[in-house]
């Protein structure tokens, strides 16, 4: 029988400060990218025209560019899409352009392609023409969805656990969303509706992971009456470690399959999900748990041993029932506060 991390006994919480530092660094880099480069919104969000064409021979983006310039479409982006006979042409609507322009653009692209690839030498396989008004609405909706999902989860966790757990889980998840957005910006992925869907899936996945650990914490708080929260958190993370490895393993396996095999349309989604699994795992252990500790310190609960967690330095004897309980745990590096 293979057992990974059985009876693991790592002091995860000790590294919380390092985790904050890493997070801060990621955030700074990410926000830097966001500020300078911003997000690469798809035309669903900005409005504009997209054409995906397949040509019989590799024409090259240069020739298409020339042809587009020839019909006066200077701002258009041209990218190969998976292979060098497949191109995506995006013409975003400039603020000055009129509303009905999207259709005219599509026609102009058609003319340009006739000139560069020759009529009959190409096939338009996908077109999209979105008016900016619709894009604006969509942006609002996407934002609303993320906020709403936070709110609903907060309420659910508050009902099932306690508001302290809910807040810690939501903060950790908020971290994941920010980190994922930073990742999207750094990777220059196109923010389409599918990618927003991926971000929301990351929200669900990360919460799921945090909840598994918190569920163990809740159980262990009842089971081991004498341990402080610091120890309980570490114990719970260690106990759930095999599960984390297995589940993240299977999920990574499927996202990698999507990333490598599912084609161009799904690729941004798969990128975001792959990153999301990492950040979700990281945040459940290094953000959610330490934040719960901080929240307990700031607003001590009735039973949760927050204040004691920071006060009790002496190692508490392990429960005889549980061989997996660490025999001794190094004291936390957090500053000492008076016991309640």
């Amino acid at each position: 029988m293979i057992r990974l991390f059985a009876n693991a006994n790592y002091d995860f919480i000790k590294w919380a400060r390092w985790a904050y530092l890493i997070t801060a660094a990621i955030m700074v880099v990410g926000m830097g990218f966001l500020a300078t480069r911003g997000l690469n919104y798809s035309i669903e969000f900005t409005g504009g025209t997209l054409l995906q064409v397949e040509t019989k021979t590799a024409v090259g983006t240069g020739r298409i560019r020339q042809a587009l310039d020839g019909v006066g479409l200077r701002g258009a982006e041209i990218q190969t899409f998976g292979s060098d006979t497949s191109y995506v042409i995006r013409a975003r609507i400039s603020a000055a352009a009129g509303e009905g322009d999207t259709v005219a653009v599509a026609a102009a692209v058609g003319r340009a392609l006739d000139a560069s690839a020759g009529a009959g030498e190409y096939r338009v396989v996908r077109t999209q023409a979105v008016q900016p008004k619709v894009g604006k609405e969509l942006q609002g909706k996407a934002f609303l969805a993320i906020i709403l999902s936070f709110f609903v989860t907060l309420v659910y966790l508050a009902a099932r656990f306690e508001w302290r757990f809910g807040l810690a889980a939501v903060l950790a998840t908020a971290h994941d969303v920010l980190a994922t957005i930073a990742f999207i910006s750094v990777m220059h992925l196109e923010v389409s509706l599918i990618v927003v869907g991926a971000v929301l899936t990351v929200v669900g996945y990360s919460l799921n992971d945090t909840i598994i650990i918190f569920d163990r914490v809740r159980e262990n708080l009842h089971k081991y009456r004498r341990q402080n929260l610091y120890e309980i958190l570490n114990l719970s993370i260690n106990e759930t470690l095999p599960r984390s490895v297995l589940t993240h393993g299977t999920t990574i396996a499927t996202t990698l399959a999507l990333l490598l095999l599912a084609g161009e349309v799904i690729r941004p989604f798969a990128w975001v999900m792959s990153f999301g699994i990492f950040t979700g795992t990281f945040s459940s252990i290094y953000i959610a748990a330490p934040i719960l500790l901080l929240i307990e310190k700031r607003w001590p609960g009735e039973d949760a041993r927050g204040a004691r967690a920071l006060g009790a330095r002496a190692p508490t004897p392990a429960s005889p029932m549980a061989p997996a309980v660490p025999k001794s745990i190094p004291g936390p590096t957090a500053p000492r506060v008076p016991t309640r």
Partner: protein
Amino acid sequence: MSTIRGRLITIGILMVISILALIPRNVTQRVMDKATGRMKDTTVRQVPINLGLDLQGGIHLALEVDESKGPVPDCADAIQRAQRVVRTRIDEFGTTEPVVQIQGRCRLIVELAGEKDPARAKSIIARTAFLEFRITDMKNLFQTTLPQIDAALRRAGVKSRGAAPSAVSQLFGADTSKASRDSAADANAPGALSSLLFQGQLAGEFLVPEEQGEVVDSLIQRPDVKQLIPRGIELKWGAQVESRGAKSYRALYAVESRPIITGEELQKATARRDQLTNQSVVEFVLSRRGGRKFGEETARHVGDYMAIILDNRVQGQPPVIKSQINTRGQIELGSKPLQEASDLALVLRAGALPAPLTIVDEQTIGPSLGADSINDGVRAGVVGVVLVILIMIGYYRLSGALAVAALTLYCLFTLAGLSAFGFTLTLPGLAGFVLSIGIAVDANVLIFERIREELVHGKSLRLAVDDGFKHAMNAIVDSNVSTALTAFILYLVGTGPVKGFAITLIIGIAASMVSAIFVVKTFFLIWLQRRPAMTTLSV
């Protein structure tokens, strides 16, 4: 034993239901007939899962009221009228189930799966609605020419296809039938057209069995038949299919070619329920000019039936003109529900005030791209599943194999769920499905890890299994509910493909709860019962 049997029966029932939901069945599809350029119905056999536009190719259009040429006071009403109009034109599209729905208040979504020609689709949608009132063929002019038409068809060699061939014509052998075509005996044979038409309730109304609709349509479109239709009379199909008893019929109306009034004279139409008689009523108001004309016409046609025709389709059953109507009139629908009256009022308004529409979002996806997407998605799915199987069996051995067996049930349940509730599988949905396979084993991982822990704590096998399942339950429920909540929000807020993703995720979560908890537990119970002496569990 009995609990195991009960569980197995439950699983068996679920499997049977799922397989039934996925058995390929006949679906009618409208395709363009290459020869005539018109739409016709064909039947194809396919697995009943709706594929999204991104997988089968098609056109998605979002339309709004065009306000560039002046403000439109009530956009919600304008969009409802537009929806009504597009619905009447639905069978001009080459698609199985076109989606014509209102999104929010003032936006119309039209999705035409399989439609390849965006220009044609747009022209059908954007065409201005045309409403007219016409008197039906009160003198039965058309009916009296039916024998002539039948004779002409017989001369042209069109065989009667409607009723079963009469006994007389069957008596003749194959070689004599040709010679007897014009004989008196064959004249008694059912007419090619008349045998397909059943006299309706009012003058000029005929009922055609739905399955014969195409045949009749092709017959009345023939130039030789058109020539014989009396001057001043035209044939128009009814918009709705009506069922009489077990069969459904489509109405065909013979109406005067000259409209007594057209939609532009209509100013207002509203539906209401008459408080005194408890009848559904549509009230309409005509312009002064229209009222004068309508008054003259209705005075001459008291007692006649008046067909309301929108875009060449007769809407509802023509009402009888009871008295002269000037600018204000009402159509009584008797005991029919108010809904029907509202619909008729909408038809009248749609014809009266054509809503200028503008396309705010247009997407076309070529069928080849959709097919590629399916291939890639399925390939990724297969590889993902194989990896998950390897990990699970490699790590958990026999228990892992049980989880994998449950995983196949999971896939079956999820696909059946999509099919049974009529949800649509989109490309992101396919990705969500693949992803959910990775997530679906989470419940089993949680349970197996718990069982291992319980075993380490020195519990007996049976107790460890029971407690493993029991203790893992809290975590499984909480984590799945929170994922389902975010998926539900995605469903509420998302559109099109993203909605499909959310649906797949939600169904996947539900299916994984059943397969990972109930099914795997059953497997364990059987296993433990078969091997009571077993001391170590392959977990």
